[in-house]
């Protein structure tokens, strides 16, 4: 498989302390990756470094085969930050306008958006099943609807890699399951590589193909039928940690036939 992210010896400092130390791993095209680890372990730091939003102390990052320092295809990377939860609810923006912002990049600066752009916006709204919310203000949406709107924004430029930072915080189990199923659909049908920070370990081991366990160090493992989550998670959460997980639990998750 073709690597989409290659990290070698990555060290990142937040202030005087090392937040990530000598991390090396690879993510292949089409992977559905869960980033887990304790609070303050460096998950968001890792994601921000991968997106070039934090400076590196040492090490290298290659995105789609290109060194991050010279990488210029950011329209191929979609990112949903925690801002999707924290934004100013009074901001006068409709869902369509928000998703339309996903078509803004360095290459089309100063150009008016054309029919093709707005058609891509309609497609992204449809893909995330929120066409009926297009003219609603984003401040008036529920948590789940907001996340889907922000994912639609990040999908509108037809990215190859989608990165999400704790997108299901505060969701009820049904909304969370629906959201994860939509992401799984995007992964299966469009071959989209997805990297998602989540504290829901069951969802990660049931739905995803790779796990990155982050606690200053990064431990990467493929998730297969024979994967024992405990062995991976103890490296991040500590030897005392035990995650009672059995694969048949995955059969009991919420399923909505409408999705």
């Amino acid at each position, binding site marked *: 498989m073709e690597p989409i992210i290659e990290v070698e010896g990555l060290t990142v400092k937040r202030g005087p302390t090392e937040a990530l130390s000598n991390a090396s791993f690879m993510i292949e095209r089409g992977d559905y990756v869960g980033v887990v680890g304790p609070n303050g372990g460096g998950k968001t730091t890792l994601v921000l470094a991968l997106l070039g939003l934090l400076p590196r102390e040492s090490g290298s990052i290659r995105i789609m085969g290109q060194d991050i320092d010279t990488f210029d295809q950011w329209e191929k990377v979609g990112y949903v930050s925690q801002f999707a939860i924290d934004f100013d609810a009074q901001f006068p923006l409709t869902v369509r306008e928000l998703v339309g912002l996903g078509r*803004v990049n360095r290459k089309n600066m100063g150009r008016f958006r054309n029919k093709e752009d707005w058609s891509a916006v309609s497609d992204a709204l449809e893909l995330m099943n929120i066409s009926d919310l297009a003219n609603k203000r984003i401040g008036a949406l529920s948590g789940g609807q907001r996340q889907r709107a922000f994912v639609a924004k990040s999908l509108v430029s037809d990215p190859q890699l989608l990165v999400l930072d704790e997108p299901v915080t505060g969701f009820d189990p049904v909304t969370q399951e629906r959201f994860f199923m939509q992401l799984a659909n995007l992964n299966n049908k469009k071959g989209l590589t997805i990297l998602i920070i989540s504290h829901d370990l069951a969802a990660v081991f049931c739905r995803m193909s790779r796990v990155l366990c982050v606690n200053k160090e990064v431990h990467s493992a493929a998730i297969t039928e024979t994967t024992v989550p405990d062995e991976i998670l103890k490296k991040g959460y500590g030897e005392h940690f035990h995650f009672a997980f059995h694969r048949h639990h995955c059969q009991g998750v919420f399923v909505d036939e409408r999705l």
Partner: protein
Amino acid sequence: MFNYQFIQMALVGGSLAAIVSAWIGLFLILRKESMLVDGVAHTAFGGVAIGLLLGFDPMLGAMAVSAAAVLGITYMRRKGLAQSDSAIAVMMAMGFSMGMIIISLANGFNVDLMSYLFGSILTVNRTDVTVLAVLGLFIIGFMVFFYKEMLAITFDEDGARLQGIPVQVMTLAFNLLVAITIALSIKVIGIILVVALMVLPGLTALQLRRSFKATLIASTLFGVMAATLGIVLSVLFSVSTSGVIVFTAAGIFLFVAAYQRLA
């Protein structure tokens, strides 16, 4: 009344200043930088005083000092020298005190200076209107041309940076437009009240809870409405024009806010 040339000039000049102020003002409100206007406008007082002292157009002085103030505030914030409000306070105090020193050195400019502090829209001439129109068109042109980029930066700066938009350069350009807008609006409404012309129309439009585009259009209409109604009412009742413009804008704001809550 509308046959008088000074009224016609005032209405055209006031409307132009109101349109530009409303556009720039809405972005400032959403960036939570409304008080930047007040700080920079007071700093511009120093520039007006320099212009009067050295005998060149005080508006040029106001524009230059406003631009320097905006750049100074941005620099102080970026380098962590001061928080946003402290940086504005420092610049405001420096600019205003510079003006006071110059006035005392020149033994006062009395009437001239008062017209810049409180505005003198009824004295604008054809040249003033032409300058307003040219600079106003330039500002609106920039905002139309870079509408989607400015909206992206205003909504989510980090997200915009990731999308490859040169946030720092765009923010610098926007801040310089803020400085020019403030200098333009001083002639209409004066240093003391310029913040009202830039903030009240946008704040009123936000009460409508519409899309961004609709809010921007509504903000512009409310600004023009306040300026034209204010000028007409002030002439009819022979009271301070800038005061009436601000009171009209505040009245429209209160009416719309109340209507939205009661309707």
